[in-house]
């Protein structure tokens, strides 16, 4: 793997910008692949990052995706200015969603995003203040493979 100490970067995300949705996550995916991170870790990081990116685009006004890649892990932190999550336990339940109808018509908002992040991440933490926003911390271990 071509990582000495750590590599970091940050993307700005705009709420409602569906046209560019996924740009940050696919760039992170390419970066990880270029660094020689194992395919499994690249895949899991890309899926988790994209689900989190979509959440910002669907629910928030704006946000950032910050990543740190070391030889051991990829840590992806998403911070947004948005409505926040009232009941995190409920939000983690598959099928629960607060997305509006027009977002559901696009095929999003099925209440599968957060559970999918949990499934793909090795560590996953959500912090939120209602009316202010949410912070998601996603860690993918890349030691193995």
């Amino acid at each position, binding site marked *: 793997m071509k990582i000495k100490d750590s590599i970091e970067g940050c993307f700005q995300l705009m709420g409602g910008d*569906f*046209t560019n*949705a*996924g*740009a940050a*996550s*696919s760039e992170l*995916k390419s970066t990880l692949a270029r660094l020689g991170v194992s395919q499994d870790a690249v*895949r899991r990081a*890309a*899926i988790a990052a*994209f*689900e989190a990116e979509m959440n910002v685009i669907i629910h928030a006004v704006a946000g950032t995706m910050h990543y740190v890649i070391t030889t051991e892990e990829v840590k992806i932190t998403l911070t947004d200015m948005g409505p926040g999550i009232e009941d995190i336990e409920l939000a983690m339940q598959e099928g629960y969603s607060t997305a509006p109808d027009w977002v559901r018509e*696009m*095929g*999003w*908002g*099925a*209440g*599968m*995003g957060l*559970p*999918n992040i949990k*499934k793909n991440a090795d560590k996953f933490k959500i912090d939120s203040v209602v009316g202010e926003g949410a912070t998601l911390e996603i860690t993918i271990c890349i030691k193995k493979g």
Partner: protein
Amino acid sequence: MLKVSDIAEKVGLDIGVKGELNKDITGCYISDLLSDVMANSKDGELWITLQTHPNIVAVAVIKGLSGIIITNGRFPEPDTVKKAESENITIFTTHKTTFEIAGLLYNMLK
């Protein structure tokens, strides 16, 4: 293994966007729910859908899908075409229904 370049003729699909045609097709996934495709599709699968907006390309890139087939005579939106061209994702279109395409592909991929 079946390649993306093989199926247009065999299944009778029109090419909407010519992306990476040399990819192996490992299987097929059918859903109009993007969240479902994010959760359950697998690397290298072809995706059959009715959705036409640009996010289908992002999903295909993130999940490493081999291509997208849009059925029922629908066409990708202009932004979807632009995105697919820049990401090298193949999009097929067809007037056939999802059921018909799935049936044809099932016999080729099973």
